[in-house]
């Protein structure tokens, strides 16, 4: 499969764009990142993602693929050299897809709610975030089977689905020590796992640095609802 003609449209700080970056890095795909502000619905964005008008969009050759997890699966299907992103066994794949859907449909909406909540409500949402994260810790125990990652010895689909947000989880704590989500006393395995991602040879260059995120966030101050998927 030709590795030329791969363009990724989106903002580098976006955790959804980050998922695609992690997948492309894993497969050693040459690509061009075309920075795009998701809050400005440029003509180009409307052209490559007319249905949702969101980033990330991967354009391979002249064909656009949208929705971060769909793009990650596409990358796994299209580049068969290099490590597999999804597990091989159908049941393990189903488990990975289930938890990826949980992360997108249950966990992240809570993170967003927490970010947007007023001070009194924030604490309550934070408790729900921790409950959801505790479920992910249990999932990690079952799925990793004692190994380093959700994917086993190497990073996989769920490591990407959740790992793309680790920079933001760390940022949450940096901004307010009361909102520590990656807490080694509560979810020790996920705390260790997060650390491991920053030194894993396949994805370390893709991982988002909380300090850099803080700098980018101060640039994009007005954040209504999310415009990434």
């Amino acid at each position, binding site marked *: 499969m030709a590795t030329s003609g791969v363009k990724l449209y989106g903002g580098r700080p976006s955790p959804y764009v980050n998922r695609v970056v992690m997948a492309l890095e894993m497969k050693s795909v040459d690509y061009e990142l075309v920075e795009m502000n998701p809050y400005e619905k440029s003509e180009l964005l409307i052209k490559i993602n007319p249905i949702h008008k969101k980033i990330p969009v991967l354009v391979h050759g002249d064909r656009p*693929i949208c929705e971060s997890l769909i793009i990650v699966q596409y990358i796994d299907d299209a580049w068969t050299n290099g490590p597999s992103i999804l597990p091989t066994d159908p049941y393990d794949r189903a488990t990975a897809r289930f938890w990826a859907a949980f992360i997108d449909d249950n966990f992240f909406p809570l993170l967003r709610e927490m970010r947007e909540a007023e001070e009194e409500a924030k604490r309550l949402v934070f408790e729900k975030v921790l409950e959801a994260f505790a479920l992910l810790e249990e999932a990690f125990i079952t799925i990793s089977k004692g190994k380093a990652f959700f994917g086993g010895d190497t990073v996989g689909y769920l490591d990407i689905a959740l790992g793309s947000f680790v920079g933001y989880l760390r940022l949450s704590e940096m901004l307010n020590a009361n909102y520590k989500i990656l807490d080694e006393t509560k979810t020790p395995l996920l705390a260790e796992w997060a650390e491991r991602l920053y030194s894993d040879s396949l994805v370390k260059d893709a991982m988002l640095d909380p300090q850099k995120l803080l700098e980018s966030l101060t640039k994009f101050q007005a954040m209504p609802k999310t415009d990434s998927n």
Partner: protein
Amino acid sequence: MEVRLHGMWASPYVIRVIWALKLKGVKYEYIEEDLSNKSMAVLEYNPIHKKVPVLVHNGKPIVESAVILQYIEETWPDRTPLLPEDPYERAMARFWIDFGQQKSLTFFAFFLTSEEDKHKTAAQVLETLKILEEEALGDKKFFGGNTINMVDLFFGWLTYSFGCMENISGVQVLLPETLPRLHRWTLDFKQEPVIKENLPDSTALLEHFKRVTKHLKSSNKFKPA
């Protein structure tokens, strides 16, 4: 190889799994669940969402209909393929399934619409269906091309359940005049042998929808899946 499916006869999420299993020729045991009194099996197999469908294969549960459909495709790949081989076409099939999931609130709003809002909610559904017709179906016989695939199964509920929603809300949306190609697809889809033999009784379904609407409207909440 033991396959069991916990389901509910009127659920559009369950029926797409039944269709997939039948198309693949997979023998399974079906357990009808009373959603107001779920079995221990459902609560144990799906502790997070506590919903049907639950597919149990050799004692291991799989939940969420989109996940189950992909599991069935990958576990029985040799019979009746439900996804294209080409990675890009495959990504597009997943995209349309995801689109359907993202639009579930739009359909729910129409299903439970008040008299005042019925034309507004109907217009939003029409807009969604127009996108589906134009971009996903196009001039093909089925979403899958000449044969049905996972996307057809996913939207199959439009061919019979949606009529109940139109009946209850009092506005017809899916008509030959408004959505000619999609309307034609609904007829072709229901003619497929496996589908034809596995559709719920339409009278019973309408009664069921009327009961559910009444209950949801009076309790003032709804839970999109």
